[in-house]
């Protein structure tokens, strides 16, 4: 074979330029209808720009036309992976403004439901994280565990996803017979399963390579960019609304609040696993010490809030869910603003992704645990 030594000269107009890569809104790994426009230089990301609004359902405008009790089912549909927490945020805010005193038993039941919901939501997060990073088995295992929680919720509220369980003045109904036993059986089952997930996934070399050092987010950045929940704690800021600004019956419980240090994907995962264990602990304490009494007080059929406004916040599995309600003395809110943690976290996605590789965008979105229902409302 003759060897050719003729080299073609490099064309003088050959240059480099950035590529615009569009991710979504139909994408298997964007946790919903999120569009991210990436500017990439080879494999390295130079610019990230989330584009949201593909699920904007006019929630806040609707609230201005619906009465206060009617809004409870609507709040379920904002963060549809933790509807109990959304309802809790809403009823806490309205009850504070209206001065409604909720019975003690209802407060404890709210804590039990909110913590069960945290477990269910973190299980979906874990499943999606595995799925996005290429491992499908965690998804199936996590949803299998979540079915236990769904059964408990269905027993007490009648629905699997949109419960409308928390009401203004308490909760809809008391625990059904057998609930406590089933919940305790679940509490005995979970620690072994969590250990199994950690052994299989958190110690997996591929996951460690894809998560350690990826999406670093310092504590100052976290506070400046309004991070909350596990994202904030993974960056090293020790703040948990359940402990530091308690609502419902949280002041009576002792629980761990896991803290990270680097603010990368791995630390966020570790924080959420720690929260899973802490939630099991809280539910155990609550079931043991559940006081007796009513679960619902009588609230006027036509509920009018006094004029004024207030901001009230709770700790959802995603972060701080805040509700700013302005009342003009009528039966509907004059203005209801839903502060969604996922919406605020999306702004920091650019900070977490710039300079990393395209595959890290998926890991970052999964670690932020966004839900488009609350981003867009």
């Amino acid at each position: 074979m003759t060897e050719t030594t003729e080299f073609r000269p490099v064309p003088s107009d050959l240059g480099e330029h950035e590529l615009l890569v569009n991710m979504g809104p139909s994408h298997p790994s964007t946790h919903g209808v999120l569009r991210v426009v990436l500017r990439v230089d080879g494999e390295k990301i130079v610019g990230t720009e989330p584009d949201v609004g593909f699920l904007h359902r006019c929630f806040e405008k609707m609230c201005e036309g619906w009465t206060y009790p009617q809004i409870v089912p609507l709040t379920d549909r904002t963060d549809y992976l933790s509807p109990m927490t959304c309802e809790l945020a809403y009823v806490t805010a309205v009850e504070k403004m209206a001065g409604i005193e909720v019975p003690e038993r209802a407060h404890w039941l709210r804590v039990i439901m909110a913590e069960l919901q945290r477990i269910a939501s973190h299980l979906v997060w874990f499943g999606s994280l595995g799925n996005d990073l290429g491992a499908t088995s965690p998804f199936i295992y996590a949803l299998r565990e979540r079915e236990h929680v769904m059964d408990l919720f269905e027993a007490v509220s009648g629905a699997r996803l949109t419960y409308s369980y928390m009401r203004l003045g308490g909760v809809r109904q008391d625990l059904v017979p057998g609930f406590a036993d089933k919940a305790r059986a679940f509490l005995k089952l979970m620690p072994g399963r969590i250990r199994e997930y950690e052994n299989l996934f958190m110690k997996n070399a591929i996951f460690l390579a894809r998560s350690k050092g990826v999406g670093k987010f310092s504590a100052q950045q976290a506070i400046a960019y309004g991070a909350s929940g596990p994202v904030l704690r993974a960056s090293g800021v020790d703040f948990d609304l359940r402990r530091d600004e308690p609502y419902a019956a949280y002041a009576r419980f002792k629980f761990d609040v896991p803290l990270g240090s680097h603010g990368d994907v791995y630390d966020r995962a570790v924080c959420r696993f720690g929260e899973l264990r802490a939630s099991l602990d809280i539910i155990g304490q609550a079931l043991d010490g559940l006081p007796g009494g009513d679960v619902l007080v009588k609230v006027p059929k036509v509920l009018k809030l006094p004029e004024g406004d207030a901001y009230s916040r709770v700790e959802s599995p995603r972060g701080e869910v805040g509700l700013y309600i302005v009342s003009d003395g009528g039966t509907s809110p004059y203005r209801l603003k839903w502060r969604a943690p996922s919406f605020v976290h999306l702004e920091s996605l650019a900070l977490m992704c710039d300079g990393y590789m395209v595959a890290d965008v998926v890991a970052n979105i999964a670690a932020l645990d966004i839900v488009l229902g609350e981003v867009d409302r």
Partner: protein
Amino acid sequence: MNATNLPARRMVAGEALQNLLASRVPSARTTLRPDGELEVRVPATALVATARLLAAAEPLALNYLSCVSGVDWLERGRIEVVYTLHSMPDPAAKVSLRVETDRELSLAGVPSLTSVWPTAGYQEREVFDLFGVKFEGHPDLRRILLGESFVGHPLRKDFLDQRPPHRRVTREDYQP
């Protein structure tokens, strides 16, 4: 942090902030609520200065912006923008910073606070999108939740939905 003392510590922090603002920002009108939240009303010209003051206050700086919300006061002809601030990690200071602007679309504008709290970026864009309030100094002010071709600002009280009625599509008359 002692969470059980929170209302009392909020009052103490609120009073300190009230005194600070009274001495440094004369145009600010402050009201301390019984639960410790401090309402601060400033004109748009004093907004950025007040924000910087609050974000650097000692000992509890209001370094955490929780929520930016617009409120359309139709009868008064004003739109109010409310910034809810907390201190982090000790939440003992809570302030709601309020500024009002004219409702008229061409006149509705306030300075942006993204230079003080970067998290205001998306939230101010949302207020612009849904209320039509322009934020001067915002790095990227455009619609965020609604499509670019959407006409109007829907959370205004006088917004009317003027889309043509939708008609059902069947397989026979579907046009790709």
